[in-house]
């Protein structure tokens, strides 16, 4: 009795092993596709993973973690302030004037001086608040004596930590400014008028604010979205025979790997693929799928995988064909 049970269970076990090992091999489809590897695509990824926003995000994280380092970076000018507080206040005023009235900018002749001024401008922006605080406190306490001044400076330094936290966003925008506009700013300083300078500064501030907002709420910044769009524009060969007065929108949901390669694609309106009278939709959907295959790995941000691991691409040919 037991022998039979053991034999039966042994045979069953054997069949299960056979099924798991050999059957999937036997049932393999005749055409087994290995993943596509293209040298060019790899080159594209190297070039494209340099959008501004991921760097900005890196900086945010760095700012969070490396507050002390930032303190040390900001420290040197403040040490000078400690030694000559009166001069520091004067300088601060000048700086404020420089920012508001860039008359002082074109006066210097040598490029080095200009770069120095730029650096000076870059540093004081986040300190404005602290400096304003300084000046307010100074006015209250009548900063005539050196001891009093030193005490105030110490107080301000103590208060600097929370102040830095308050001004994080501004610091980030500064870093972005540096990255995006450093060369143009120098050019602007040399070539353009003061008014233009002021305008560029305003513009950069606007851009960074919107980028921050996008990062928090929509998932991709404008630059990230543009990079992805530009990549797909190049890959998507639109079938020209489509009826341009029909609904030519194909929505495809993607599941992505952290490197931007595609794990899974899903045509959301799949029912239309085989709908009578809408044969064009299948052609359009296939062209969109080809574009995704051709473009992968997609130009996605280097950070924030959780945000974009699921992505929906809306391929709309109406603008191209209907226009």
């Amino acid at each position: 009795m037991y022998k039979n049970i053991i034999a039966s269970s042994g045979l069953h076990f054997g069949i299960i092993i056979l099924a798991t090992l050999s059957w999937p091999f036997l049932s393999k489809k005749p055409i087994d596709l290995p993943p596509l590897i293209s040298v060019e695509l790899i080159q594209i990824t190297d070039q494209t993973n340099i959008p501004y926003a991921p760097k900005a995000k890196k900086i945010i994280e760095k700012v969070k973690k490396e507050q002390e380092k930032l303190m040390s970076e900001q420290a040197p000018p403040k040490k000078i302030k400690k030694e000559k507080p009166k001069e520091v206040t004067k300088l601060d005023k000048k700086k404020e004037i420089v920012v508001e009235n860039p008359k002082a900018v074109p006066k210097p002749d040598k490029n080095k001086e200009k770069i120095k001024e730029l650096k000076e401008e870059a540093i004081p922006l986040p300190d404005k608040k602290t400096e304003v605080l300084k000046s307010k406190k100074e006015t209250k306490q009548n900063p005539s004596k050196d001891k009093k001044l030193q005490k105030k400076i110490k107080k301000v330094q103590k208060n600097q930590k929370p102040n830095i936290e308050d001004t994080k966003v501004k610091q980030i925008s500064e870093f972005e400014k540096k990255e995006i506009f450093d060369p143009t700013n120098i050019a602007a300083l040399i070539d353009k008028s003061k008014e233009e300078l002021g305008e560029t500064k305003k513009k950069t501030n606007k851009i960074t604010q919107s980028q921050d907002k996008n990062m928090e709420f929509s998932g991709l910044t404008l630059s990230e979205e543009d990079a992805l769009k530009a990549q797909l524009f190049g890959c998507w060969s639109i079938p020209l025979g489509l009826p341009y007065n029909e609904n030519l929108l194909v929505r495809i949901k993607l599941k992505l790997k952290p490197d931007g390669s595609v794990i899974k694609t899903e045509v959301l309106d799949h029912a239309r693929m085989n709908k009578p009278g809408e044969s064009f939709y299948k052609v359009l959907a296939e062209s969109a799928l080809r574009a995704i295959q051709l473009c992968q790995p997609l130009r996605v941000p280097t950070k924030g995988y959780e945000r974009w691991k699921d992505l929906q691409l809306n391929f709309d040919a109406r603008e191209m064909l209907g226009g």
Partner: protein
Amino acid sequence: MKKLYFLILSLFFIFPTKSFSLIEVDITRGNLNPLPVAVSSLFSNEQTYFDLKKELKINDLGLEISKVIENNLRQSGLFNPLSKDAFLQKPDIAHLKPRFEDWALIKAQALITGKVIFEDDKLRVEFRLWDVLAGKEMLALAFTTVSKNWRRVGHIITDKVYERLTGEKGYFDTRIIYVSEVGPKTQRIKKLAIMDQDGFNNKYLTLGNELVLTPRFSPTNQMVTYLSYFRNLPRVYLLDIETGIQEVVGDFPGMTFAPRFSPDGNKIIMSFAKDGNSDIYTMDIESRIQQRITNHPSIDTSPSYSPDGNNIAFNSDRSGYQQIYVMRRDGSKVKRISFGNGLYGTPVWSPRGDLIAFTKLHKGKFYIGVMRPDGKGERLLTENYYQEAPSWSPNGRVLIFYRETKTDDDGTGFSAKLWSIDLTGYNEKLIDTKTDASDPSWSSLLTN
């Protein structure tokens, strides 16, 4: 216990997990570059190879058919057939099991493979269309025919591939009828000629004894209507290409010209001129009943039906200048649709119904253009010293016309050739004809 549950539940609400809404990116632009396609030679085994070589005196029929397909795809402007030198896989293996990575490596997005079999004096051609990037088969068909039709098989395969990849019917298995011209301008010999759309299989239908003009294909069968100056009397004739029988259309006491078929092929619409006035008439081919459509003292000519047969576009000088008008099929509700500068003529309604092609003369230059049936959206596709007579491909994507160019500096010599242009206006191609050619007319698809 209940408190514990409540606590756990409330924790879910207090500490929600971090989640992101699905990011959507709109892709509203793409490229209009020709799609890279690999057309592999069609494989044939040794027996077939030698049998076909003996039968057709062609070394490698599979290769020749693939060349026909390649040429068609290239001419369309929508595809870029890749050089066969770059192919890594041989035709026999490619047809059975393509290594997609090899084809992707040469940047092919679609692959055509096939096989040629010659059995019982019949040619059987199998072909498959593959999506290289998706790694799947898109289309698989087989055709059986007499071996002499091998070029047509190539055209039919192209039509199927074109339809599968672009979403609209092809136009490759078609023929073009035109007027072949030889001799000096004052003593021009004009013959009716017919050829495949790629310029091959050219045949003459008339001997050149009479002047022939404006041949037009029937949209439903292999009938042609044209104008012939038989015994110096210009009349509209009807010719059956298969049988060669021709006859005069209608019993009009004067000159009839500018004929064209109705969309169902049952009527011929044309102009009839008498006493310096010309109006538009129709004639039923079966019953021979004639019907007057316009009745105006101006010159009404070049009528063309809309594909549904309900409207007719024509040109008329009733406003003082030659312009394009649209009317109901019974001649009512005449409405002018061309309002641009210059003169407009030869309106031809697209088989898709969405556009009307025309010839425009403005400041000494001739243009081929299109406009919507309401006259809006006029687009000029090509301009030249002299060009006219546009005719639509059966899918309404390409126009064929003829263009005269000066061959001498003093302007005495000239050459007339057929050209095609697609609706984008960029893909302009010369159609090779042995002689000078004019007045082309595109047939409908020979196989549906």
